[in-house]
């Protein structure tokens, strides 16, 4: 009894701290940056984190550390509880190592990253080179491209790439490991030379069709009602496809800044968008043929659209639009989330086989996405996966290697610090406690953990801090988290295998986002949840 009392006391201390950290203490619904706070946290030697090692040593130690922390706080020795780092960095579960840089004057600013069947990693760069990583060495495969933002090796000696104004086949005809033929696959799309007219790519489906995406231009004259982005020429803001015989056509419309496509093992297409006009925050899109994804600029050249994109109302646009399947709350995970990649390692990378990982153009974070299908539509949850300040900023591309490791290539020149290089992230084999799945139920949510959890804590509804909010679809840049309010968890029912918890809620609201912060739930070895916060995008209720 006395123990329970103490636990409660501690909760009442820690919860507001974590709320403050996430900006929630500063007024609901405001989009408070947590970046500076986390920057501070990374440099602060004294953390209040109840790290798993210490937690394992019993309540006395925990209480003591909290008391010490409180004293320090009171004494003003450290500022605020910012040091409660929320997301995991490299640790005993995942390692992070930088590959040596190749010998190039141009820096490995990675725009495209993919493994060939033979295990060679091809990295395309923004300054137009393609480097091949094999047997611990880099070799320059191609150069002189106009910005390579996609590399797709399709067979030995053949790599398909996107350039600003062309999709190109690079062929090493003589087998010396250096491309000597640069063949056009298509250039049937418009390009005005605007700096923001990126050509992102490149994925291929089983039938051999290629897919890429074309960024809108950055225009200053507000052409389509957007603040910054618009289409001065046609084809911008679309996803295109190229048939095996080289025919170019538009696949999907209404995109804004779709940096990086992914195709699922089942052949479905996905991309991430970053916050902007008509885009409340970063999000994951499930791309389907001829659909419209929200930014009206490309409507001006969409066959069959007869209206004026500038004057079409939001209500009309909303009717046409296919909404994102997962929202990434701004700066809670990334700030400019990019290319989704499916974990195809079948468990070699840990307990997330089949799930999605994304990098970020600005922040030092990798994000994980759990998807489920409700009816015909995907929706799901996102979680921080790995954060490393001053290292991982601008993780622009992700590729899973035959060794089961994740490789990520960096660049954020022009938007942030100008990072570059490739990092390898490998699972150590030790099972982290994570929220593996977050599924919707007719009356609440079902959480599945990677390990059995401490039943006592897991069955306490107070340990599940749930909030919900929503976004508005509008033309101005970004959107605050609107009408944010706590959601009471009625009950938390732990499954027999102690890996799942069913949360019952008074009601579920569709087209809302749920934010969950799980407290005090530990694995049998005493380890806490490695990333205990997540966001579920509830587009459809489950009947």
């Amino acid at each position: 009894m006395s123990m329970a009392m103490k636990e409660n006391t501690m909760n009442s201390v820690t919860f507001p701290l974590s709320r403050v950290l996430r900006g929630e203490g500063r007024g609901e619904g405001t989009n408070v940056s947590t970046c500076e706070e986390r920057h501070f946290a990374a440099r602060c030697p004294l953390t209040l984190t109840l790290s798993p090692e210490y937690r394992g040593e019993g309540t006395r130690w925990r209480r003591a550390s909290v008391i010490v922390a409180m004293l320090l706080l009171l004494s003003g020795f450290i500022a605020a509880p910012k040091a409660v780092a929320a997301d995991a960095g490299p640790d005993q579960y995942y390692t992070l190592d930088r590959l040596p840089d190749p010998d190039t004057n141009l820096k490995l600013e990675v725009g495209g990253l993919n493994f060939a069947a033979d295990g060679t990693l091809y990295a395309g760069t923004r300054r137009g080179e393609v480097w091949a990583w094999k047997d611990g060495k880099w070799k320059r495969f191609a150069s002189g491209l106009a910005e390579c933002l996609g590399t797709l090796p399709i067979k030995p000696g053949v790599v398909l790439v996107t350039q600003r104004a062309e999709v190109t086949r690079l062929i090493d005809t003589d087998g010396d490991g250096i491309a000597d033929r640069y063949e056009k696959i298509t250039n049937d799309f418009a390009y005005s030379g605007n700096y923001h007219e990126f050509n992102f790519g490149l994925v291929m489906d089983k039938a051999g069709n290629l897919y890429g995406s074309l960024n809108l231009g950055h225009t200053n004259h507000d052409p389509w009602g957007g603040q910054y982005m618009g289409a001065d020429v046609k084809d911008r803001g679309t996803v295109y496809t190229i048939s095996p015989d080289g025919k170019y056509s538009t696949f999907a419309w209404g995109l804004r800044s779709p940096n990086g496509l992914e195709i699922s093992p089942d052949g479905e297409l996905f991309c991430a968008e970053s916050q902007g006009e008509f885009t409340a925050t970063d999000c994951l899109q499930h791309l389907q043929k001829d659909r419209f994804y929200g930014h009206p600029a490309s409507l001006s050249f969409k066959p069959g659209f007869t209206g004026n994109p500038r004057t079409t109302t939001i209500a009309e646009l909303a009717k046409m639009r296919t909404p994102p399947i997962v929202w990434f709350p701004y700066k809670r995970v990334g700030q400019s989330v990019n290319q989704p990649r499916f974990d195809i390692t079948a468990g070699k990378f840990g307990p997330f086989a089949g799930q999605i990982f994304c990098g970020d153009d600005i922040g030092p974070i990798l994000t994980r996405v759990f998807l489920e299908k409700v009816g015909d539509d995907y929706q799901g949850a996102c979680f921080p996966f790995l954060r490393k300040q001053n290292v991982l900023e601008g993780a622009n591309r992700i590729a899973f290697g035959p060794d089961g490791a994740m490789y990520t290539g960096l660049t954020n020149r022009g938007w942030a610090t100008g990072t570059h290089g490739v990092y390898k992230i490998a699972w150590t084999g030790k099972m982290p406690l994570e929220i593996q799945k977050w599924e919707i139920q007719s009356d609440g949510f079902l959480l599945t953990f990677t390990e059995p959890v401490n039943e006592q804590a897991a069955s306490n509804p107070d340990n599940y801090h749930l909030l919900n909010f929503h976004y508005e679809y509008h033309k101005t840049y970004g959107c605050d988290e609107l009408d944010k309010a706590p959601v009471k968890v009625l009950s938390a029912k732990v499954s027999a295998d102690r890996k799942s918890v069913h949360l019952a809620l008074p009601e579920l609201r569709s087209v809302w986002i749920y934010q969950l912060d799980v407290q005090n739930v530990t694995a049998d070895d005493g380890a806490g949840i490695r990333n205990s916060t997540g966001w579920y995008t509830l587009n459809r209720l489950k009947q």
Partner: protein
Amino acid sequence: MSRVFSRCLCAIVVFATTSAAFAADPPARPKSLDPGLIATYSSGQRKIVRLALSSNFVLQAGESIHPQIGPDFTLDYDGVIRVLQAGDYAFSAADGAAITIDSAPAAKIHLAAGDHALHVHYRRKPGPARLQLTWSSDAFPAEPIPPAVLGHSAVPPEVGASATIERGRLLAEELNCIACHKSESPAMVGRGAPDLSTIGSRVNPQWVVKWLEDPRHFRAHATMPALLASEQDRRDVATYLASLKDTTTTRQVSTNDDAAVSGRDIFENVGCANCHGKDGVELNGQASKWKSPDALSRFLLDPTAVDPSCRMPSMMLTRQQTDSLAAFLFNPPKPDDKSTANWSIASHLADFEQASVDADAARGKTLVQSSGCLKCHAISGASSTATEAVALSRVKPAAGCLASQPPAGAAQYHLTNDERAALTAYVRSASEQPEVAAAPTFSYQENIQRFNCVACHTAEGFVPKQALDGVPPLAIAGQKLRPEWIHAVLEDKQRVRPWLRLRMPHFGPAVKPVADELIAVSGAGPVEEAAAPAPTAIRDGRKMVSNGMGNFGCITCHSFNGAAVAAPEQSRGPELTLMVSRVRPDWFARWMREPARIVPTTLMPAFFSEKPASESMPVINAMWGYLSMGKSMPLPDGVTPSRQQEFALTPIDVPLVQRCYLDGGGVDGKYRAIPRAVAVGLPGLTCYVFDPDLCQICYAWSGGFVNMTAGWNGRGDTHGKRLGTPFYNAPPGSPIYFDSLEKKPQMDYIGYSTAHDQVEMVYSVDGVEIHERDSASPRGVGLVRTFEFDPAGKQVYFVTQIDPTIKFSSSNGSFEPVPTPNGWETPERTQAVKISGSSKVNFSITVTPTQDGK
């Protein structure tokens, strides 16, 4: 401290070199020479004797030395040459002119110090022609004879008459007599007047009424005549003109004292006062004239947009600066105590503010159309209904506009007696010897007065009132600068010292001919390029340019890629990375050896005084080799790299291909932007660009490849900038046709190969896969385009433009003129070669630039 020191050092060196160059001066300098040679031009029965202030020329076929003299002329110069230092001299001139000194042939001659009689006899042969008087002696290497040592003593009576006729001619052009009195001369140029389509937004109608009565009452130099006799007519016209407005709303432009003082600073320093100072073009009454300070400010932003005559140039000011200038003109303070500019301005003129205006606009419009206003002015939607006047050759002296009291209906110019006499003399002369040829050196002499170049520049026979630091003399511009650079300065706003406050204005399209005239008057031959720099030359040259012991430390005074230098702005040298694209190699060598010989007041030190060529030339050549890399030059020691990373790409031993958005450039955007460019740079810096959209090579250049600095920094837009100098520009259109030129070929870009360190472009024309390899011409600048393909039995044509600046030759067959093929986007004159062979053809087309078609 070091700044002061370096300045002193420069001054000492200059002093030393100046005295070295003229060491043998007699103690008492004789009085200075009267500039110019007495020229006698004759052609058939025609003869003209005049003072030629410049003796050299470059003429194209059909051009002449004087508009009234045919292209097949004989020329004799008489005058004196001043020798400062006795010695063995050698004289020469291009194109076989005969030079005699003291009546002896002057190919090789010993001359004592002093003045000697000079005679030059020259007979023009048909076709392009060139004359450049050159001398050398045992004390200095060959150089064009400096105009300062040429002069004349005796003046024949015809010279004065010629001067009057020439003055009359310039007046006839400036008063735009030829707008009404048509001239058949191929060489006369009229003067356009401001476009009046939106004059109602610019000027006050009260001012217009008074101005129409007598423009010379407002401004003594006005060239517009009074055409409307009655006050009612003038009020009606002013009412009509007041209705011609644009839709711009008027901004509030402050004219307070602070703004006026900033305006004064601009007026006195950027160059306004050089034309508008004492005895210049008056600026009284601007506040009476302009509708608002905003209207004046808008005009000043680009006066040439309103006034195509371009007499008032754009000073390339910002809107803020033109606002200040407007404030200054509306509210002029006293001249600055420290200023040397001499001006006085009254902002208001009371009698220009009194007219009542509200009159009959419709009648005003009819008057504007019928009175001849639209012979000079344009108004959109209105055209002239005025009757034609007699041709210029039939104009009677002392009648019509030329009468001392012009009759009613004639234009009233309020001419002075001198002006009337000069105009009459010209009209008479031109009817006796009508003008028959374009004469660029003659036009040059008119143009430097017309555009008032001589307000700032010294030129043949002209010295500006005020000595201005850093303004180059015009007489040597064509000997010093490459033709492309002269064009770029006059037409493309290129400036080599953008930091100077006194600025070279932008004159707009009317000044275009002056670029070619500067070259014509220089007598300079084609630019002979040095061979591509050897790696050792680049290394040695870099060392000399660097700071450090034993080096020249050029970067102490010259800017390098915009990097800050220690020298104060007034004495800062021109940008080093532009040096080679700007100056001629022969001039560079002369300049380096003895700068003060060319510009006695220069701050450029002489590093090779009295050194023999065998010692100086290897160093000068090494520096030139290094400078030849332009923006690709490795940084010299002493220059800190800019924070922005530089990416000037340079092919060293293998070709480089760079896909980029290749920015357009050149005069009038001649070299178009290519969004999907495949730019190829070959070792030795012969480069070309292939456009996948047009499926052809668009242009080729040499001396530098591509700079990706803009495209690869910051957010990056993959834009590349061409370095070096273009020598070939292909109009849009397929070079390859099959069977007939009448069917537009279907072209498709396939790609390129880089195998074996050779770039091969692959594309298809009507289904035939073309392989094109391009290489540098083995002899100097040029491109060899080698094609290989199988036409499958079809007749192959290779088509190209006919262009006097480019020579095309084929390894297979020869070029014949053909009608422009179907599919060429511009109306070019074209030529084609029929390639023999119907399977597996392999042929080369060599593209070589020529100097003006020679």
